[in-house]
């Protein structure tokens, strides 16, 4: 067991736990955001850099601070480690700059995006971003690509978190797609527009934090905040059959896996459950699904006025005031 201090809160976790998981054990508002890390997927994390934290004391044995900000999702805890997240201005400034970087090539087409309302990037930019823009160049754009009959890929919105690549590799057994190109020309692709054809392939839609991979049976049917989520299950020979139905009235508009409050799926589901079973009679309803975060249907998430400080109540004073090292535009 290792005892660490995270934002002044002590927590004891198993050896080998990452800082992010330790913070999630504390829960609440001190948890760093994560765009690329996904607990069920081995090897994910370390790419988006939004979960950067400051380690002010490495461990009891070696109390030196770590020289750079570290990615909390892949850095393992040491006994006696002291970590600062919301209490450190450098961390908050760095996070703001990462959000800015993630948004410069993002089309910001939320009004016509199916993911709007349950988009991790939307949440992230509300909570940690800035309301002004400094990027005035042309954004990169791609054509929409159909990955088989059910999935559409819109690379323009992609933030290259690699989650779907790991899913295709680990959940869908056969690697069907990967990353082509490099730098800001890198794109998720199947190489010569192959079809993604595997009974678990639909899970790439669930793991996508933005609207890059969308469900073609759901596209433009409705806005997510008008639908009602229900827990339901059925006897499925290939997967657990435990899903969330998104209904409008009696009509099942879409089926997704059940996601926890960090937007991570509890159990991956198969394509039959996801795309074919769109009748209420296919499912046994368990009751309403509570959506903790990550969707505008979880009431009041965006109720606070959007200001340029993180919406974190109970935050120590230093982080709530204007960040002194931040560029002018960040403190209007």
């Amino acid at each position: 067991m290792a005892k660490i201090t995270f934002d002044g809160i002590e927590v004891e976790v198993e050896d080998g736990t990452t800082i992010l998981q330790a913070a999630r054990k504390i829960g609440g508002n001190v948890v760093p955001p994560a765009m690329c890390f996904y607990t069920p997927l081995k090897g994910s994390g370390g790419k988006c850099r939004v979960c950067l934290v400051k380690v002010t004391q490495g461990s009891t044995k070696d109390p030196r601070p770590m020289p750079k900000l570290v990615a909390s999702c892949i850095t393992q805890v040491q006994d006696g480690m002291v970590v600062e997240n919301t209490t450190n201005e450098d961390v908050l400034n760095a996070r703001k700059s990462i959000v800015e970087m993630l948004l410069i090539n993002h089309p910001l087409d939320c009004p016509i995006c199916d993911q709007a309302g349950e988009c991790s990037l939307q949440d992230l930019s509300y909570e940690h971003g800035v309301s002004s823009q400094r990027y005035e160049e042309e954004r990169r754009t791609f054509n929409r690509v159909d990955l088989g009959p059910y999935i559409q890929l819109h690379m323009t919105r992609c933030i290259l978190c690699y989650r779907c690549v790991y899913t295709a590799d680990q959940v869908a057994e056969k690697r069907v797609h990967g990353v082509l190109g490099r730098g800001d020309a890198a794109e998720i692709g199947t190489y010569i527009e192959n079809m993604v054809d595997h009974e678990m392939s639909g899970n790439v839609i669930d793991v996508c934090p933005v609207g890059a991979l969308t469900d073609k049976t759901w596209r433009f049917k409705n806005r997510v905040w008008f639908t009602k989520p229900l827990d339901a299950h059925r006897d499925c020979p290939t997967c657990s059959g435990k899903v969330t139905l998104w209904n409008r009235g009696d009509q099942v508009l879409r089926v997704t896996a059940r996601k926890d409050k960090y937007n991570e799926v509890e159990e991956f589901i198969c394509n039959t459950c996801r795309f074919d079973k769109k009748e209420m009679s296919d499912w046994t309803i368990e009751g309403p699904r509570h959506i903790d975060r990550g969707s505008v249907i979880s009431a009041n998430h965006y109720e606070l006025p959007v200001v340029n400080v993180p919406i974190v109540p109970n935050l120590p004073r230093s982080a709530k005031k204007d960040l002194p090292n931040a560029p002018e535009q960040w403190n209007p």
Partner: protein
Amino acid sequence: MGLKILTEHINVPGIETLEVYRKHGGYKSVEKAVKTMTPEEVVEEVKTSGLRGRGGAGFPTGMKWSFLAKPEGVPRYLVCNADESEPGTFKDRWFMERNPHALIEGMITSSYALGANTSYIYIRGELMFILRILEKAIAEAYAAGLLGKNILGSGYDLDLHVAPGGGAYICGEETALLESLEGKRGNPRNKPPFPAVKGLFASPTVVNNVETIASVPWIVNNTGAEYAKVGIGRSTGTKLISASGNINNPGVFEIELGVPVEEFIYSDEYCGGIWKGKQLKAVVPGGSSVPILPANLILKTTAGEGRLMSYESLSDGGFVSGSMMGSGAFIVFDEDQCIVRNTWNYSRFYHHESCGQCSPCREGTGWMEKVLHRIEYGHGHQQDIDLLVSVAKQIEGNTICPLGDAAAWPVAAAIRHFRDEFEWHIKYPKEATAPGAVYRGQLDSVTA
């Protein structure tokens, strides 16, 4: 002429053949090491020598070797990083092309020190002709019993392979190199675990530069203490410098560390002065990723001491008034060179070479390039300069691998030292975009 450790026999005709190489004392270190020394003794010699990594970071090699984890039953690997792609650096290519056996000798001795039974030379894809030279030399070494099973009857086995990369700059970063060597996409890994614990094929691995490995035979032959006498302070030994730019005598020079920069630029033995007798404007002393320094700061530190070609002296003053030794690519600019255009060019390179894995580098390098492009072509705004500084600061230190830093440093340094040139470009776009137009305001303060 200083002491030549690496290039003593480099101009001997036929040195690329085993016969001539052995005639000039080649493979003596292999015999000495495998027959009379234990691996620990070799590591100890390298530690005493104070040899520092020649690839750019300048980390002490002996220390790196002693960090190598040695679990039972797990193979260890030595990988030679011959993926030399830093703009301005061409020393390894030059060296391997002329004297392949020196590298192979170093590989055998170093592999013995580390207990590696399989070693790799990861070479840049563009250097296919050097791959052939190396493979020919390796075949000769196998035939002479210097590689393969039971080297020189000592019972030590070593297989040496040459693996070509695809020519990506990022594969010069050690973990990306290992990924590429494993046959995957060349994306840097998150550290920890470091390669010394979990490197190639999840086994402990040491990655060293060509020049570092080629220095090992001399250390084994002449002892580390002797090597430590060469050079100055903690910068021991000799270093290959690839000098390029507006100088009379560009090329690769082997220098004893500690040669004054002024002597290096103006002496006929080395660069031979600035081309056509022009004035010195700026120098990038260690490859495109290190900060650029204006003439007055490269010749003298802020304390007024003459700057020397050594790790410590070049980084004197931190990034405010100093730079870095880097990989030893000495790029000289005369008074007619435009710093804005040069910075844009570097930025374009990093934009092109960013692997696209982590967001600050993927998006930030492109952003900087676009803003610099705008300034260079006369469409900049005054606030763009601060924007560039801010973006560079946002990338620096927040990325997985040092490519982000390497992209940010030259931009930040160019603005730090040549801000008025950037301002002039923005203020007088017409004059600045005219062919051959260069800002000469700052040249008044240059002493040459």
